[in-house]
């Protein structure tokens, strides 16, 4: 499953970032979204365009298209 399939306030573990491009993956890793990181879906914003996540106490906003490519497991 991917991030967009999570429900609000659900916690999941990232299992793969393989589908994303390299530069973006590096950026995600830098701010705390890496394989095996725990994320919480806080909210879906801007009418489904943006996903607000929480990782290690930090709130991060990513786009729907990218959230679709981040594989997670509950």
């Amino acid at each position, binding site marked *: 499953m991917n991030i967009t399939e999570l429900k609000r306030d659900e916690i999941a573990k990232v299992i*793969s*970032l*393989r589908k994303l*491009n*390299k*530069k*973006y*993956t*590096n*950026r*995600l*890793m*830098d*701010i*705390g979204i*890496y*394989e095996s990181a725990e994320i919480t879906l806080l*909210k879906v*914003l*801007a*009418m489904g*365009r*943006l996903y*607000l996540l929480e990782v*290690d*106490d*930090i*709130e*991060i*906003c*990513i*786009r729907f*298209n*990218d959230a679709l490519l981040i594989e997670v497991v509950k």
Partner: protein
Amino acid sequence: MIFLLAGNPNTGKSTFFNSMTQSHVHVGNYSGVTVEKRVHHIKNFEGANLVDLPGTYNVSPSGEDEGVVTYSILNEAYNGIINIIDSTHLKRNLHLTIQLLELGVPTLLVLNLKDALKNNGYVIDTDKLSKILNANAVSISAKDRNKDEQLLVADELKNIRTFKGIELEYPSAVKWGIQRIHDLLRYDILQVNKKWLALQILEGNQGIFQFLDLSKEEKIRNVVKEVEERIVNEKVALSLKGAIFNTRREFLTKVVDDCMIKVEDKEHSKYFNQKIDRVLTHPAWGIPIFFMIMLGVYQISFGNFLGVGAFLTSVLDYVWAEFVLNYSSIALDFIGISGFAHGLIVDGLLAGVGGILIFLPQIVVLFFLLAVMEGTGYMARVAIVMDRFLGRFGFNGKSIIPIISGFGCTVPAIMATRTIADKKERVLTILTIPFVSCSARLPIYVIFINLFFNKYRAFVMLGIYLLGIIVMLLSAKLFSLTYFKGSGSNFILEVPPYRIPQLRTIFYQAFEKAKRFIKKAGTFILIGSVILWLLSNIGPSGIDINPDDSFLSVIAGFIAPIFSPLGFGTWQATSSLISGFLAKEIVVSSLVVLYGGEAGIGIAFTSLTALTYVVFASLYVPCISTVATIKSETGSVKWTAFGVVYPFVVAYLVSLVINLKIVIFIYKNTSLKMGFYLEERIIMKYIVGNRIFSYNHNS
């Protein structure tokens, strides 16, 4: 001695920098606000300087501004590094720390936000951390500006020790790669540890190839490829970067577990943040709230009602006209200076500079309010609510921050685009931002609105601003459909918690802007006004002549016919636009100088030509500082040239359409034709007549 200050974005790095040094830098709550390198003296440490580097998560650059960090480490002269760390997000912050410690230069770890961590119920065992990481560490709370803490940091810096760089147990393929690259670097003379450089290259730090001219670059790249294959084939990790990252993460998890001590059970709630966010980022209310806030900001800066800025400007205007102009004129008469020199000083220099200086309060108030918005963390929310809307036109959600700064000044706005990681989206933003009406263009609108559209003040003002925004959006759409097609839409925005901005910092920011504005008025605009006055009073036949026979009239008169289709093909209007290229403020100064005061402008324009002139002036070629910034930020002559030609063409076409449309409208309504025209002339005469009377009366 020189120390580099490195740290993640949003760790209070700039606050620390401000409290430790003797002067301030711009402080923001938005990822990557500090985009320029700044150097200041360190307090309590004679002869030591601190260099503020842009916030970064990683030594490898991923945005334009982060390249500065790699560049500084590789090429600058320094004696040590101060690494500022957000204690409340220790694990993530330490990723950068590890990379700095691997470098093996003297490093001081400053664990900031001690209070916030304590409020969460934790403390950090700095002694233990210092021991494990083999570097000095102190815990502080930078925003308190505590003198003891400042002394403590200065003392630690004085006694900073040189350590052997930390070495982690990387997978064997990585270790092999480090050794191979290290060997390949043996002929290169470098100021940094070669093993560190090898590891950075393996990690994918492109900045190294960019900033260093390595003799065996090709071979090094092949080694990286080989290691990457080994990592994937041996199933160590999914990528080379991933393998290095995982080793660090495992090590850091242990470090954090060992050093982070829970002292109190506290349920730290994010209730407050979430409650505000529920309103401010609401799908329906988010955008209207943002517009309401902006309306408030503009009302306070420029409006009549509650308008602090506009009020102060009118006071300054009165003081300037009644005292400065009047008394200098009297003083000059008294000491016997008259004629040409008198005109040069009063009508050229003082009138030109004063015409601009009186707008200072409005601009300071605007910058103050924008700084408050940024300092609270609201700007990140604006990026969220505007992402969808701006995305439709090819912008990135983050473009909203530069766009808003663009209402102040285009130059910092273009610099602020450095936070947009995607190159195409960034260039697109840079090329369209000049259409946003900067504060320097405001005097042009104000003066023409006063003269011609006083009845519809707010309407015309809003219209001009909206026109700029519409042209910007449509241009962006046009670009994104053509050349910039398919630009990457990767977007990561860190949403910081709301903070109460520090008044001290915000006052300082507004003060800095005021200083810059006064400096500009005292140099650029002063010289511009004087030259303009001289050119318009000296001609082929001598000095002190009728301006119509002046050099300026000859030169500008040659170009003026280009503007005839727009309705203002006079040499005065043309020269004001040409001089506006130096700085947009000069447009008004030169109109005032060339037409001999506001009254003269009132006679020379009709409401229609006034409108086309204002529209043209609001959209045409950006000022010279902006053009220079476009050049330095895009690094491309092609884009710079485009950034000059495109706005000119757009401004010309829009003004032409307005001119023709209204002329056709008048022509079609033939019954109205004469009436409208005559009526307008009569009204004009009336207004102008009155103005001349009151002007003469005043002076």
